[in-house]
């Protein structure tokens, strides 16, 4: 009897339609503005992550969508219905908090069935549904235990089952994994993703952990200081960060000062490098050039490449499967790069601290940003 759980499969008719539409959303706490002019469209069944440093307004945005803390301005529509002024009970969502907020005096079964009792379902129906939900999160047979008797990861699963019990069309997760230790966290990432896919429930997950967002979300909303910096798939966010903030917050990147030069080049430390840039950066403007550590090429570099750069390895940090190298351009100490070298590469080329090598910065791996005021 999978009725209810499977009620909203991804790929159903209308899956491409906008399910959650957020327009001009803002939120003030007194004089402090926690959210500024947020626009966001989310499709039915999508898994979207709000990513950003602590205090950037992720929770505030999530609670506004839930109706738990009303926004100061703007609108929210869910499934075509304007719910901007609707109380939480008139929006259709399940929520999991960082603290799980399990009711300590109720058994696991009563916790999961908490929202079902109110739906005037029969006892047998509720029992069956609770068993089904607990099986789904891998907790069959723990029905009569109390939350305090479960591990953190198990409590988290109970909270998830409880949130999904009423088959909501929207699942809201606020840092659901941050209270768990690393191993449990990795396993639960997959489990949550798996359950979400199976049910096709549209999901928002708040996290400050970029790895979590990259591995779980279909789309990431990167936020900073109450504004959205970028919206995109994990790959877009990583490969094509819209701002230096996104570039630095998601993954590692070296940002080098330079000047825009011609239509397809930048000048750094008196040298010219090929790099495409956005049209709005004027020729001669100060820029920052970003390159990911793993994009720096070493093998087979002849020195005749347009973006070849002689460097010295000033530091090698052993990180297990690979080493993180600090490279300083010869004759230009302002150009410092971070590169990841595999153990293989180190062995094959006999690289050591202090060695002088030539690397290539492929043009299609260079990202050109307008220089920040402070940079």
């Amino acid at each position: 009897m999978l009725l209810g759980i499977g009620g909203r499969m991804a790929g159903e008719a209308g899956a491409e339609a906008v399910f959650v539409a957020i327009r001009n959303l803002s939120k003030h706490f007194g004089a402090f503005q926690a959210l500024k002019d947020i626009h966001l469209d989310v499709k039915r069944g999508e898994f979207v992550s709000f990513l950003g440093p602590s205090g950037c307004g992720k929770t505030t945005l999530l609670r506004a969508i839930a109706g738990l803390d009303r926004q100061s301005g703007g609108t929210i529509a869910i499934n075509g219905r304007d719910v901007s002024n609707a109380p939480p009970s008139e929006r259709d969502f399940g929520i999991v908090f960082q603290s799980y907020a399990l009711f300590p005096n109720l058994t696991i079964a009563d916790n999961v069935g908490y929202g079902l009792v109110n739906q005037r379902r029969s006892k047998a129906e509720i029992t069956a549904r609770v068993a089904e939900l607990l099986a789904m999160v891998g907790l069959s047979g723990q029905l009569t235990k109390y939350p305090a008797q479960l591990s953190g990861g198990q409590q988290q699963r109970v909270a998830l089952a409880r949130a999904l019990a009423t088959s909501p069309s929207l699942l809201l997760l606020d840092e659901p994994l941050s209270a768990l230790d690393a191993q449990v966290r990795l396993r639960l990432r997959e489990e949550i993703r798996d359950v979400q896919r199976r049910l096709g429930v549209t999901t928002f997950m708040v996290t400050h952990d970029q790895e979590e967002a990259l591995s779980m979300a279909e789309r990431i909303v990167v936020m900073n200081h109450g504004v959205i910096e970028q919206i995109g798939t994990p790959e877009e966010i990583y490969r094509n960060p819209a701002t230096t903030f996104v570039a630095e917050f998601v993954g590692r990147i070296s940002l080098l000062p330079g000047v825009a030069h011609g239509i397809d080049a930048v000048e750094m430390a008196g040298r010219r490098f090929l790099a495409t840039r956005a049209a709005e950066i004027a020729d001669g403007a100060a820029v920052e050039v970003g390159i990911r550590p793993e994009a720096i090429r070493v093998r087979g570099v002849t020195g005749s490449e347009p973006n070849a750069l002689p460097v010295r390895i000033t530091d090698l940090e052993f990180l297990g499967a690979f080493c993180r190298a600090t490279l300083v351009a010869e004759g230009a100490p302002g150009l410092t790069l971070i590169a990841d070298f595999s153990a293989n590469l180190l062995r094959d080329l006999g690289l050591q601290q202090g060695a002088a090598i030539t690397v290539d910065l492929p043009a299609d791996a260079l990202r050109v940003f307008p220089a920040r005021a402070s940079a």
Partner: protein
Amino acid sequence: MSGDARLRRPLIREQTVATLLVLALIIVLVLIIALPLWSLLSKSLQNASGGYVGLANFATYFATPSMVSALFNSLGVALMTTLLVVPLAFAYAYALTRSRMPAKGVFMGIALLPIFAPSLLGAISLIYLFGNQGVLKGLLFGHSIYGPIGIVFAEVCYCFPHAVMIIATGLRLADGRLYEVAEALGTKPTRVFFTITLPGVRYAAISAAFVVFTLVITDFGIPKVIGGQFTVLATDAYKQIVGQQNFEMGAVVGLILLVPAVLAFFVDRQIQKRQVALLSARAVAYEPKPAPMRDALLLAFSSVIGLVLVAMLGMAIWASFIRYWPYNLSLTLAHYNFGEFEPGGWEPYLTSLAMAGCVATFGTGLVFLGAYLVEKTKVPMPLRSLAHFLAMLPMAVPGLVLGLGYVFFINAKSSPFGWLYGTLAVLVINTIAHFYTVGHITATTALKQIDGEFEAVSASLKVPFWTTFRRVTVPISMPAILDIAVYMFVNALTTISAVVFLYGPSTKLASISIIHMDESGATAPAAAMATCIVLTAIGAKTLHVVLDRLVFSRLQVWRKR
């Protein structure tokens, strides 16, 4: 789709219900706290026929020598008691928190004993010991126990538990690291005491001093029983209202009584803030090191004090079983045959039980629900702040003053509540209001410890907040709820000052019956009635502790890991 049906707007929204409940709470608190106080204030500015006379009543008051002397008597007695209690309580609390003296738990229990008795019980004991037939009368060298000496002695015992609790809390907040550093630097113990210990508890000591001063100045029972011809503010107010029906002067006295209490309230608020700062910075709890000499001295001191406290309680209890003090010391239950000394017989005791039971039941319900609404609902902040303010107000209002306020409020010509006068209902309401704040603080503290997202989770599951209140919040808060109930029950049993103006012929309480019997010279039956109250109060507390240990720990299996 079935989902749409679930999302339809319900008949009445939770938010509306919550707002209405908070509004109802505010109305109730205004009725039982704010309006009576307002009546007192306005009464003090009116003449007998209700016309506005400005400060004329105050002018009359200060121009009447007998009244001003009552004011100075009160100030003198309160000051004297404060100067005695604070150092004694400090030493006792120091022994409890900073020594390795044995049997600390027993000494803590003994220090709290006076809380379970009406204030006047100590006065009755003093009469037995030092009164006209007192066995220790000689120790007074011809002075009379009826008057300031007796009042101060009895007040010291009555206020002792409050001062000890406040100062012991202050001492417990000390940062152990300071002492370790001082020791590492080779600081002498006396220097440590004067540079670390004393400054550390100065806030608590100031707070205790204000609390004691207020307790004494507003206490009615002790000066009534042992004051003799020595009038103080509280007995003067009683005389003005009950004796001479001079309500305006009664109101003036009430307002004067309000001054130290309000002062104490604000001093305490300031001190609380500083103590919280101390607490959050605290890293290491203080562990007293062995010091046999110190421990022996403190044990001796605490034993003497403990003995006095036990004697002050025990003397009256013992005397209530003695045939004819001090001539015939054989035991008897004759004084418990209340019918011979008091028209109501055992009726007042039963009325007190009924009153305390109602206060514990309805008071706890109101207080907890009120604190929940203030703490956990999403009702607009100004409304919740107003309710919180009203709930904190009674802390600053002595029982006697609140009682006077009630008299004026329900007896006002335009009042629709005149019929309440003398009913059990008004005694219950007034007592709930009197002890509201401590219950409110207890409930609020307990609620703050509960996960703040329970209401959010319920809302997401479309379970209304009242269901979560019933199924989760109340069961989780059961220990705090019981604490509040027992606190209210014990205080309702022992209170005198607030209810002395409000009882009627059919609702005379045990504590008032004690005063009447004592007035008519039946001291032993008065002691007997007081004994009944003490034993009931201690019994209730014991039952609470036992239930808490045995039954509720079993019911609350979910707390165990």
